[in-house]
């Protein structure tokens, strides 16, 4: 398992290079051309990345999420789920590193094999950071009108989070 995940990238690069040589293209020139496009791409996404990381980080610093949790606590006590999972569920669409850090805290405090530890693991794996990906992908090509992309993305996140709760209950509850 470990070996497989480590060998995929070298094999993939090898496959691409060998295929390039076989098709008699100038492999090195092709790489340079692509790398130049990559550099321009970094240039294009720079404002988006700086803007989003800035907004998300000062939002996290303000502890707003922790503040609103007070209101939701009675409901979570009622269904017997520790409130510690909520910041993670709320932050998952905004920041991957923040939700990963919370998952790590949960592992430290409750252990990875506790119910909440398994729930956190499932939650981390089940969706991506929707808002960041959306800003990054559309920002890189300067699309401003994202139409229904965000509602659909957040709907998918919500369904994923609900599914993570239910499935973890069924498997480990």
């Amino acid at each position, binding site marked *: 398992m470990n070996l497989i995940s480590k060998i995929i990238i070298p094999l993939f690069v090898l496959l*691409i290079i060998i295929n390039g040589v076989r098709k008699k293209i100038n492999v090195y020139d092709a790489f340079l051309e692509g790398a130049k*496009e990559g550099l321009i*791409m970094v240039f294009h996404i720079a404002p988006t*990345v700086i803007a989003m990381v800035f907004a998300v980080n000062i939002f996290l610093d303000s502890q707003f999420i922790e503040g609103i949790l007070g209101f939701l606590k009675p409901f979570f006590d009622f269904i017997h789920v520790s409130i510690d999972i909520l910041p993670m569920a709320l932050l998952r669409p905004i920041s991957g590193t923040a939700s990963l850090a919370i998952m790590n805290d949960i592992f430290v405090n409750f252990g990875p094999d506790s119910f909440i530890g398994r729930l956190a693991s499932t939650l981390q794996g089940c969706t991506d950071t929707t808002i960041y990906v959306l800003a990054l992908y559309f920002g890189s090509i300067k699309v401003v009108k994202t139409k229904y*992309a965000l509602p659909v993305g957040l709907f998918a*996140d919500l369904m994923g989070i*609900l*599914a993570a709760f239910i499935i973890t209950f069924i498997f480990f509850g």
Partner: protein
Amino acid sequence: MVNVIWIGLILIAILYSFFTGNIEGINSGILSHASSGVNLLLEMMPLIILWTGIMKIAEASGLLATFAKILNPLLSKLFPSLPKNHKALGYIASNIGANMLGLGSAATPFGLKAMDELQKDNPKKKEATEAMITFLVLNTGGVTLIPTTVIALRLMHGSANPTEIIITSILATSVSSISGLVLDYIIRRRNRK
């Protein structure tokens, strides 16, 4: 839409900090978090340049078209608006593949390149196309088959069975992706009428 989120995050952060009296914190946050973005960018830059370079070789040698052909039965259903030989499809296929294997660092450059190719024949450059939105939904749903980071962390914290969450993650991911794609499909069909 991103505009609204960005304004919302910043307004909430500043006003809530005033409300709780955490003025010191928000002051230093505003001044220091511009560099957090630059740091992330510097982390991403070498990977983006490396992978766009490698993938250009794959594109020039026709390998990317082969990937797209393998995934064509799936891709043609998901992206009915794209012609079969569209350049973006190879990058979309690679992005999905990298995501499934948990290779997030490679998935992002493939995804950005796919968006770039989709934008080339977008008649209204400021508006998202149907294919772009479907691709985004597919991406944010996160089609991870092996959540490598989570497994590594579980192992580090002494889990008796670090990989037991693979099955629950796959199920939850599937629910998330499928519900996103279904809603996307419904909206597309309604818009066409």
